[in-house]
């Protein structure tokens, strides 16, 4: 017999009844031979039963009126204008912000090239990284579609940097509006929940090749650079020393296309 070794994950899946029948038999046989492990697994099953029993009565309670779904739907129907107002307010805000941005250009020289990219990346980080609801438009599970989307909008083949060897997993990404056209934003997080953002867009003739340059604003630090017409900036709320190797890695991968 050539069994795969039993893992801790198997033991939990055994407790949670999530194993395929064949594997379940293998684990059961293993437990027969290992009473100490069997005791632990038995304790975990006991916990599971106890928790379920302790929490079961809550699901049996009559629902309070506030949780009457039909009523929630009805209330919403009666004030459909709310959404429209919200959209109108957002549009106004956007017009205001865009107007302000355009005005800004006439009042003071807005940055160009790498400095602009750094600013855009910092702004994207500031807006999206603290977002718990929807930090990214498309999740990592839809990476293929995300890549297709941003590549078509940037008219450029965009590759998502892989930072998982450095402990940062891709959360997903989105298209971001900048004064210099669309940019692709990718967001990552690590086990501590720290997020970083990589923003990339074509440089459109400015700073088409630029060495890696650090930038900071408040406690948000980052590195920006450009290679062959594409600009990149990696931004996070971390010391520059911690971000530099990540930026180097992104640059290395982008060059390897």
């Amino acid at each position, binding site marked *: 017999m050539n069994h795969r*070794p039993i*893992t*801790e*994950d198997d033991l*939990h*899946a055994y*407790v*949670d009844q*999530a194993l395929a029948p064949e594997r379940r038999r293998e684990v059961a046989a293993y437990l027969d031979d290992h009473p100490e492990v069997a005791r*632990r697994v038995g*304790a*975990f099953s006991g*916990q*599971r039963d*106890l*928790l*379920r*029993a*302790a*929490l*079961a*009565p*809550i*699901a*049996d*309670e009559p*629902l*309070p009126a*506030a*949780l009457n*779904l*039909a009523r*929630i*739907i009805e209330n*919403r*129907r009666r004030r459909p204008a709310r*959404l429209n107002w919200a959209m109108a307010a957002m549009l106004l805000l956007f017009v205001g912000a865009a107007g302000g941005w355009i005005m800004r250009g006439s009042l003071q020289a807005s940055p160009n090239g790498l400095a602009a990219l750094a600013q855009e990346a910092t702004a994207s980080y500031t807006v999206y990284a603290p977002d*718990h*609801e929807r930090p990214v438009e498309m999740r990592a*599970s839809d990476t293929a579609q995300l890549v297709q989307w941003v590549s078509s909008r940037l008219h450029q083949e965009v590759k998502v940097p892989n930072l998982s060897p450095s402990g940062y*997993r891709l*959360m997903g990404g989105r298209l971001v509006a900048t004064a210099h056209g669309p940019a692709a934003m990718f967001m990552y997080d690590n*086990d501590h929940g720290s997020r970083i953002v990589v923003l990339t867009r074509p440089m459109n003739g400015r700073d088409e090749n630029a060495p890696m340059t650090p930038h900071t604003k408040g406690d948000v630090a980052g590195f920006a650079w450009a290679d062959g017409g594409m600009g990149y900036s990696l931004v996070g709320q971390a010391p520059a020393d911690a971000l530099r190797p990540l930026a180097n890695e992104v640059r290395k991968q982008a060059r390897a296309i």
Partner: protein
Amino acid sequence: MDDMLHQVEPLIPALRRYARALMRDRASADDLVQDCLERAVSRWHQRRDGDVRAWLFTILHNLAVNQFRKSASRGRHVPIDETNEDSFGEAASQEQKLMYQDVLAKLARLPEDQREVLLLVAVEDLSYAEAANVLGIPVGTVMSRLSRARARLQQEIEGTAAPTNVVSLRRVT
């Protein structure tokens, strides 16, 4: 909208159960579920194809995270002694009730991230992949948190007041 009613309504009791186990007191848990339902109604058309249950738990989780963050500075959960006697249901006998209260109090002492995983997997019957999706973490992280949650809860149950930083159970994969 009828479609939504049929798909969402049967899941409300489970959402309440999860919210109550996270928040501990009935009022804030039900507020959370109400917020969740309102969001679900307003975003029904934006929902991707897939499991409605996991989608609802994702909304609930995100709301709970916001809540935790907001209340982190104010001290978090209602301690067990302050909760209403019958907060955890009335069907059980007195002895059972004490046992249930005891395990829920121990559950409440787990770190939030471990508690969430344990509840979603062991009580709400989400698959490991679904739980990973709901929490926005990789499946490997779900497994390690589950493992830590169970080991720690067991320590509590067995009364070995082991230091919290000792993890007796490791993933061997």
